[in-house]
């Protein structure tokens, strides 16, 4: 199929790319941009490993057509580190709380946690659990993931 141009913001930078209109956003992010934090665990929007932010909302990029990203602002895990490679507070919290095991679901969880930690309101642990319920983890039982998100959200609120 003929390629089609899309213009979008990817990890804070304007990008133009010619893509196959049949491609999923996850395929384009992994294939054209080598953003391999975007993982494929099911390809049907069930596991959450490919979660990215589009205009500030979480999406499973495997069931999001890349052409739909035209004009949008897309953020992947790679976009959370600064230019010097310094990681963000939520990434550090995942390390500190032991919220990582095999690591395959980790990028998706961190992306799903962003709307929580960036929210002006406080989430209860049950609300945090609901907000990450579209991401599966088989290693951690979610306990330390919830801890990491809660801790980061609390410290951001205190800082305000």
């Amino acid at each position, binding site marked *: 199929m003929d390629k089609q141009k899309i213009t979008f913001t990817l990890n804070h930078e304007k990008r133009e790319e010619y893509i196959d209109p049949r491609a999923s956003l996850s395929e384009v992010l992994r294939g054209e941009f080598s953003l391999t934090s975007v993982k494929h665990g099911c390809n049907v929007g069930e596991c959450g490993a490919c979660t990215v932010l589009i205009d500030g909302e979480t999406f499973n990029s495997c069931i999001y057509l890349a052409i739909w990203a035209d004009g949008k602002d897309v953020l992947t895990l790679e976009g959370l580190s600064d230019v010097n490679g310094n990681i963000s507070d939520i990434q550090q919290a995942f*390390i500190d709380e032991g919220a990582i095991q095999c690591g395959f679901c980790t990028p998706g969880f961190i992306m799903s946690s962003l709307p929580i930690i960036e929210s002006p309101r406080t989430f209860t642990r049950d609300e945090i659990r609901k907000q990450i*319920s579209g991401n599966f983890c088989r290693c951690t039982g979610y306990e330390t993931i919830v801890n990491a998100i809660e801790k980061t959200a609390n410290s951001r609120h205190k800082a305000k």
Partner: protein
Amino acid sequence: MVVGKPVERVDAFDKVTGRAKYTADMFPENALIAKVLHSTIANGMVISFDLNDALKVPGVVKILTCFDVPDIQYPTPGHPWSTEKKHQDIADRKLLNTHVRFYGDDIAVVIAETELAAKRALDLIQVKYEEQKAVFTVADAMAPGAPLIHDEKPGNVIVHSNYEFGSFDSAITEQGLIKVEGTYHTQQVQHCHIENASSFAYMEGDRITVVSSTQIPHIVRRICTQALGCSFGSIRIIKPYIGGGFGNKQDALTEPLNAWLTTQVGGRCVGLFYTREETFVCTRTRHAMDFDITTYVRPDGSFAARRIVAYSNQGAYASHAHALVANAVNAFRMMYPVGAIKGDAYTVYTNIQTAGAMRAYGIPQIGFALEAHIDDIAARLKADRIALRQKNMMQLGYVDPGTTITCHSTGLQQCIDKGRKFIHWDEKAKQYEHQTGSVRHGIGMAIFCYKTGVYPISLETSACRMVLNQDGTVQLQMGATEIGQGADTVFSQMCADTVGIPLESVHVISTQDTDITPYDTGAYASRQTYVCGMAVKKTGLSLKRKILEFAAFMLHKDVSDLDLKDSWIVHTVSNEKLIALSDVAMEACYSLTNSHHIAAEETHHCSDNTYSFGACFADIDVDIPLCKIHVNNIINVHDSGTIINPLLATGQVHGGMSMGLGYGLLEQMLYDPKTGRTLDDNMLDYKLMTASDTPELNVQFVEPSDPTGPFGNKALGEPPVIPVAPAIRNALLNATGVAVDSIPLSPEHLFFEFKKAGLIK
């Protein structure tokens, strides 16, 4: 010292930044893609294919079928190979199979330039089968006249084993015994690692390289040589980071076929990435098992005689076969080793998905049955559930008569004490007496024992290599694998302490590459900190000795006066810092008179084993009209000996508890009883628990140092899954008086149980 400290994972940074590379992340651009055609019947023969339309799809490179593969049957399980023929694994499958044995069997492969072309071609392949009757349950497969699934095993029973210790028949003649019988069923479930089965393969020269998401690279290499009929030296397996395994990747999955496929396209790189659906159906599962248990108990609660008959549904291919149910009936004996004990175990082929290794290898199955049975005995005797266990459970010094595995240390009693206190057992037990109403509360508990590694049933061997860098840091190479459990981190901690350097001076090489990596059988049986940890210790001591010898040469001192502490060569008595390790390392490398590349490699051939223990305590609500269980509070308390890294160990327990909750409450693989097709082959229909379904998980440890562990440690990775399902089941019994003898305790299952019990009209 860093052993015992909650240090952060050595791979944490790479994993929170997306830098950690998994198999698919390394797949070269423009490589070929293979897609497997799976059978749409459960039992029968492939008669022919019509490939004409499929071959016309643009981009299709080649289609290979079950009529093209080498005529070699090979085994798949990740066991250490046995050089004794009778102990060898069952070789019962080919790369693609003409005799189809389950709905989803591999019968042909399309290799194409794109995934889309491969998928289109798959849809166009026409297959002619000669279908035979299929059997899905053990009972049907063992019935007279059942279809033969493998010619080599008439009657479909792969193995029937038995044991008897003491005389069961004479023990039951004792006066005054109370006989308690139960039949328990556990279901087939799946590992659900988030990274699917994945590999790619290519050739360099006449050698085949397979990059794979595996727990067992060295074993996969051996299996590939067997499947292809080629030599060890011609296969190279590379294992990058893997997105979970839980035992599924302790089996050769896509690798042998993938290795062969590259040879069929002139060595071009071919990727074989299973979909989630294929991972559910075409890899491995946890065995469904049925147990008939009889206990003859004295009125005082002591066991006089115990009997178990176990049936394990193997599915279509042998994989790990009988090893699991054998493990289960052994644990039945070990947990309560009193009185006469008699056991029988059957492993039976059927036409469902193949079962294999899964976290705790048969023990969650027996754990459910046995601990449910113990509560059933307590109910019958009106005895205290905990006291009944304490009266009969394994004690320090126990030597199992079947395996000789010895109880070198036990903290089981403390595990029970801690759990009991945490859950407020005694208060709750009173509070929850005589309940009525539609929502009821209950408490339940269960205990377990678990051996560490596979000795003496199989070989336990592990090698480690350490290379001293010019700056005094150390490259640490293990054949043992990091699969998410934190192996690389704990090996680094062990290395640092043994050599005498800080943790930051240890560079663990996470990737295994069978061309380079020392031999090890891999991640399974909760063996690595125990068996491979000893290899690290031996190698570390060896490296340290070599460093000290070179330092002695440099300092003109006697080596016995020198020690290595915190990267300094120090005097053993005065602790005076004599020379920095980095200076020794630099000189050793570049010395014009005595250049010496300091490295060490040692094998640990382990010939011991030890038991770890633990208990789960749960407090639940049961909403009877809605048929739902809500977990209010739950704790696992573990004796895994000395904990090497509390942060990571706690994470292991969380994960196991979560898996145990899913096993007890929701998860089950379902198939169409007419066709054998898997119904819930995706994460929407298969009920893996989400964060919203998971209660807060509590973890405590007791840490008796085990004299046989390299650092006082013993098994931890698998055990946390074991006691959870029976603890919930026993809490349900406590809450409602309904003894449910099969899992999962899913809503519909509870509905029929509550109806039978008259709780629902």
